[in-house]
């Protein structure tokens, strides 16, 4: 039986408007799929009651003949990094749960209930979308596998013994396993693009400043962006056009009109100049991922794009630069978790203020978050600031200049999204540096603030008992060139061998 949820977002909203099915039917199908796939642990909380109420409101509005929005009745999964009024928001961290008999709660249902909605939540609500739940993530979005969640790992629907990528692993899996047609995540150094690639879906990291961060729990404020996941490029484009645009509550949000992203998916790509940065195809790139990618690049050439090699010489410094800049910003942003105003409070009898802070933060934060707070504090501390933090900020300038220089010669870049396909759970969790190197192809664009889209390419073939696993093509462009990237992504998608491929465990 064909499922409604397998249709693209625009078709789903059209069906609701035409009365072919109700929002309630759609939401029930989504809630059933979430229930059936619960062993993948994509969700931290399922907001069934809220979703059914909202669905009935959309159905009632249609019956009254009221105009419906571009996401009318469409179920969406929301990364638990976005504030949702009155609905538990944990950021994957026990420090955002209430304490139970002097210990952090292990239940996300005991999570912090924000007093307001993030701007992107207000926007999807106004567009008629229906949140069905909050998705699992690496704690405070720090990680590349979703294993750093304070509430247990998420599994990849292509092979449940493997990681889904991260940090937005839950949002990627919700879409890949057909629980929702699209979802929202956040990307600081690759946290949308990498899990999208490893789960075989489309993921978009918009230009820094394209989407409001009001109500996005802060990790590294000079890098964080909210963006969509979807099964297909046009659905992601529709979702981005709903959430993008200036916001008086976020002064870093760009005061620029939103592009016609969905229309851009039908644009001709003939004549576009694509650069292939040689530094992204060197040592460390899995040969099978490379083969899959080369086929996609040839397909774009067949559609009339010109392909030329380019160089981004400072690529290899991206990981080191990022892990100084991002941890420095994180150490400052995470100072707010003090056990006083919300979330966890661990207060031994007779504790003074410093003991309250220390005990709360020790019990509430996981190992990776502590590691990054310590590293960030170290690189900002007296005597080390110039050698580490200032140096990294200077190298960030060099990385930006690399991109500015190549974008004088080409319209966009094509690169791998991740050097490998999904790896087994547990393989890198004891080696933070190996985990950081998983983001080598996504970090430079984050540092430069430019947009990136990942689209699935042919899966790497099954081998030695493991099934075929997805891979992704990353398209990067100058700031605010999302329309060009959507055109290219959609052009590749029309010929991609991955169309209609579904993971075996979904």
């Amino acid at each position, binding site marked *: 039986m064909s499922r409604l949820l397998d249709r693209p977002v625009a078709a789903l909203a059209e069906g609701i408007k035409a009365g072919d099915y109700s929002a309630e039917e759609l939401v029930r199908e989504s809630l059933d799929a979430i229930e059936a796939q619960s062993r993948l642990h994509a969700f931290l909380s399922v907001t069934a009651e809220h979703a059914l109420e909202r669905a009935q409101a959309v159905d009632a509005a249609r019956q009254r003949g009221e105009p419906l929005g571009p996401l009318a009745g469409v179920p969406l999964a929301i990364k638990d990094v976005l504030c949702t009024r009155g609905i538990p928001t944990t950021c994957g961290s026990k420090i955002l749960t*209430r304490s139970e008999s002097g210990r952090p709660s292990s239940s996300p249902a005991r999570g*912090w209930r924000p*007093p307001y909605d993030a701007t992107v939540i207000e926007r999807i609500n106004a567009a008629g979308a229906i949140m069905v739940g909050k998705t699992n993530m690496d704690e405070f979005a720090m990680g590349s596998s979703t294993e750093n969640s304070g509430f247990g790992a998420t599994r990849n629907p292509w092979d449940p013994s493997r990681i889904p990528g991260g940090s937005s692993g839950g949002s990627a899996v919700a879409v890949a396993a057909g629980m929702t047609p699209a979802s929202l995540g956040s990307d600081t150094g690759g946290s949308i693009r990498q899990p999208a690639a490893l789960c075989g879906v489309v993921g978009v990291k918009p*230009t*820094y*400043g394209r989407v409001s961060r009001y109500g996005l729990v802060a990790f590294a404020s*000079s890098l964080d962006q909210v963006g969509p996941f979807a099964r297909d490029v046009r659905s992601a484009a529709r979702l981005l056009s709903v959430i993008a645009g200036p916001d*008086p509550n976020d*002064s*870093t949000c760009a005061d620029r009109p939103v592009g016609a992203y969905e229309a851009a998916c039908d644009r001709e790509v003939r004549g576009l100049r694509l650069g292939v940065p040689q530094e992204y195809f060197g040592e460390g790139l899995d040969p099978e991922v490379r083969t899959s990618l080369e086929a996609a690049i040839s397909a774009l050439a067949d559609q009339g794009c010109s392909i030329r090699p380019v160089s981004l010489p*400072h690529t*290899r*410094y991206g990981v*080191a*630069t990022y*892990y*100084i800049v991002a941890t420095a910003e994180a150490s400052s942003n995470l*100072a707010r978790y*003090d*056990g*006083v*105003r*919300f979330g*966890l409070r661990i*207060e031994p009898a007779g504790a*003074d*203020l*410093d*003991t*309250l802070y*220390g*005990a709360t*933060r*020790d019990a509430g*934060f996981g*190992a990776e978050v*502590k*590691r990054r*707070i*310590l*590293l960030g*504090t*170290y690189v900002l*501390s007296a005597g080390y600031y110039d050698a*580490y933090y*200032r*140096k*990294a*900020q*200077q*190298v*960030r*300038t*060099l990385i*930006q200049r690399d991109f500015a220089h190549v974008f004088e010669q080409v319209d966009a870049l094509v690169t791998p999204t991740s050097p490998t396909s999904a790896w087994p759970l547990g393989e890198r969790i004891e080696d*933070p*540096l190996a985990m950081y190197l998983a983001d080598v192809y996504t970090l430079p664009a984050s540092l*430069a*603030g430019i947009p990136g889209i990942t689209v699935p390419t042919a899966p790497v073939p099954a081998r030695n008992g493991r099934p075929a696993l997805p891979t992704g093509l990353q398209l990067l462009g100058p*700031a605010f060139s999302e329309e060009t990237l959507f055109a290219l992504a959609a052009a590749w998608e029309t010929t991609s061998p991955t169309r209609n491929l579904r993971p075996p465990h979904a």
Partner: protein
Amino acid sequence: MSITRDDVLHVAKLAKLSLKEDEIDRMMSDLAKILTYVEQLGELDTTDVPPTAHVAVTSTPLRKDEARSVLAAQETLAEAPRRVEDGFAVPAFVDEG
């Protein structure tokens, strides 16, 4: 790059983190590895290269100076783990002795 136990305890104090004994050892070795890795930035000559703190933020927009409603005190206090009437409760930190 070597990181001493005192280095870890010093930054942990700055960051208001109290670490357990086994965490201290683990962090010494992890931080040493990561800091050794990032030292490769020293290969680059960055003389006269301006630092980038933020991209694409060219100005700080101003809004009209008009009163508008914000969260009510009770909403703000609703999730406080401990509160006293209309405030957040904290341990005494001024010695009035």
